């Protein structure tokens, strides 16, 4: 009962979805979107579990006066204030996301800056990761470095200007070469475009085809009940 029913549910759900994929007739035609809707509803319920876990974790810290409990208090207060404001806006403006609801103020002036700043901090991390990892340590790392640098140069107007300078330099050494013609080639940008559209796409496709095969193998293992850690 505790194992066989879940395994049957997995099997039936998956096989139904696969079969329904090929059948436009009712009730199969919209089965996929129906199941995905159901999944969304189920996960809506599970947010209660998430809330339970989060508040319990931090309330315990507050009550036990664990070091840094003040921060936990901030978290719990922020959580409940947000939800209260959300329900209030929902009730008052029909939707919490009405552009003039106070909930949207919270969104615009607190969530947006937090989100964007956290995201923007990536600029710094990309910087330090590149500085550390892109060393001519071995062949693979060197390839990484060279490809990254070429794309970085090709990606900005600076690369264009740099290429123009190279053209002028070549012109100075070999006077027969026309600067304009060389500039028009846009060396770095062309290299970037080529790198992105051929080798990168090729590797992406190879990885992707492999992922599709691996995914099918994984799915079959799940459907046949060979892989069942998810219900350990």
């Amino acid at each position, binding site marked *: 009962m505790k194992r066989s029913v879940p395994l049957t549910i997995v099997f039936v759900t998956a096989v139904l979805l696969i079969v329904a994929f*090929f059948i*436009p007739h009712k009730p199969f035609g919209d089965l996929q979107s129906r199941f995905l809707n159901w999944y969304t509803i189920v996960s809506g319920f599970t947010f209660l579990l*998430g809330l339970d876990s*989060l508040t319990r974790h931090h309330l315990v810290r507050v009550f036990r006066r664990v070091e840094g409990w003040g921060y936990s208090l901030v978290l719990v207060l922020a959580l409940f204030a947000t939800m209260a404001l959300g329900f209030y806006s929902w009730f008052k403006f029909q939707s919490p996301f009405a552009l003039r609801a106070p909930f949207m103020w919270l969104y615009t002036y607190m969530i947006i800056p937090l989100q964007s700043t956290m995201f923007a901090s990536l600029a710094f991390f990309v910087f330090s990761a590149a500085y550390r990892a892109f060393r001519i340590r071995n062949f693979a790392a060197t390839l990484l470095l060279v490809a990254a640098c070429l794309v970085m140069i090709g990606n900005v107007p600076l690369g264009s200007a740099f290429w123009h300078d190279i053209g002028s330099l070549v012109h100075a050494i070999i006077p027969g070469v026309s600067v304009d013609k060389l500039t028009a080639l846009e060396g770095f940008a062309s290299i970037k475009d080529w790198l992105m559209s051929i080798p990168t796409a090729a590797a992406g496709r190879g990885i*992707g085809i492999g992922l599709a*095969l691996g995914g099918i193998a994984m799915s079959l293992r799940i459907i046949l009940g060979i892989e069942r*850690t998810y219900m350990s």
Partner: protein
Amino acid sequence: MIASLFLAALVGLTPPGAVTARDNPNDQGGAVVVTWTAPPQTQADSTRPDSSVVPLAGFRVFRSLHADTGFIQVTEQPATSTEYIDSDSLLRDGVPYYYRVEAFSATDSARSAVVGPVVSSAQWFNTTLINILVATIVICALFLIYLELARKGAKMYIRKIAGLDAIDDALGRATEMGKPILFSFGLGYITDLVVIAALPLLRKIAKKSAEYSTRLLVPNSDPIVMTAAQETVKEAYTEMGRPDFYNADNVNFLTSDQFGYAAGVDGIILREKPGAIFWLGYFYAESLIMAETGHSVGAIQLAGTTETTQLPFFVAACDYTMIGEEILAASCYLRPEPIMLGTLKGEDFIRFWLIVLVTATVLLGTTGAILSKQVPILNNIFETVVRWATPAY
């Protein structure tokens, strides 16, 4: 009818020709395709400077339950269109309908003859998906064959995956330093195969952590994944005879917001200073924020994801990275039973024949392109194969 034709001829607007109406194929019913051809003067316009002709503005499609009366307009289409799929919510399957198309200009209109009856119906098989069906059946069948062979005990070799071998070292080092272990599924949902593939790895890590009495932290972004992770960790501890070691507080929920999650995990990393970090699951842009923070506290980091766009960052910031499908195969390495390895072998078998087929087709295409004058048939065969391999959606 005759009158309208006569009127149209008088001012130069002729009705759309060759009107057809048939059931829309490969759908779940409730739709009829109406096609027509543009009346001649729209094409002749430029060559015949006839001032009395007003340019065609578009077409109107009408539908009725009767051949002669009760027509209602269902759509108005631009002059360039020659087809309309009527999927009005009032349309019922099994009911005969009649259609009529009208060409109109700013001042005038001209109606076609009535076509019909046409009955819409639902189909039991989408014929445009035949190639996908065949491919799916062949692939699944090959997997099943290999499973059968594996069950019978055929010998299987599998190569090493560096990232997997490193798990034990990482755990050992964290224990030596007396630091906790951090495991993250990223933003994965339970419907993501990579999350299901990462659960056995969590199980293995949890077992080791119970063995070494090292704290294991699993912050989550999805409550369902959290539930599955709690079960997995608890079970692993119980199996190691340490059910007391389980603390639900360590396998908890943070937030499902992408960067909120990253901020929370970063906070945990900065304060707990884990000795080993495992990034196994589905990651988006937050991957590098977390992995760089992990590096800054000196943790050994091991990553694996199916999200190709994030692999470069893990490769740059982590000590070991499982690329692409390696993480999907990982559970077979943890449980090297014949039946698990059979699916891996099947995967390789399909991969091999895929490469052979692709190569053969590409060579055929190359020869066809070179000998396109002498042996045109080669090109035709090539194009047919490519067309067949291209899926309709």
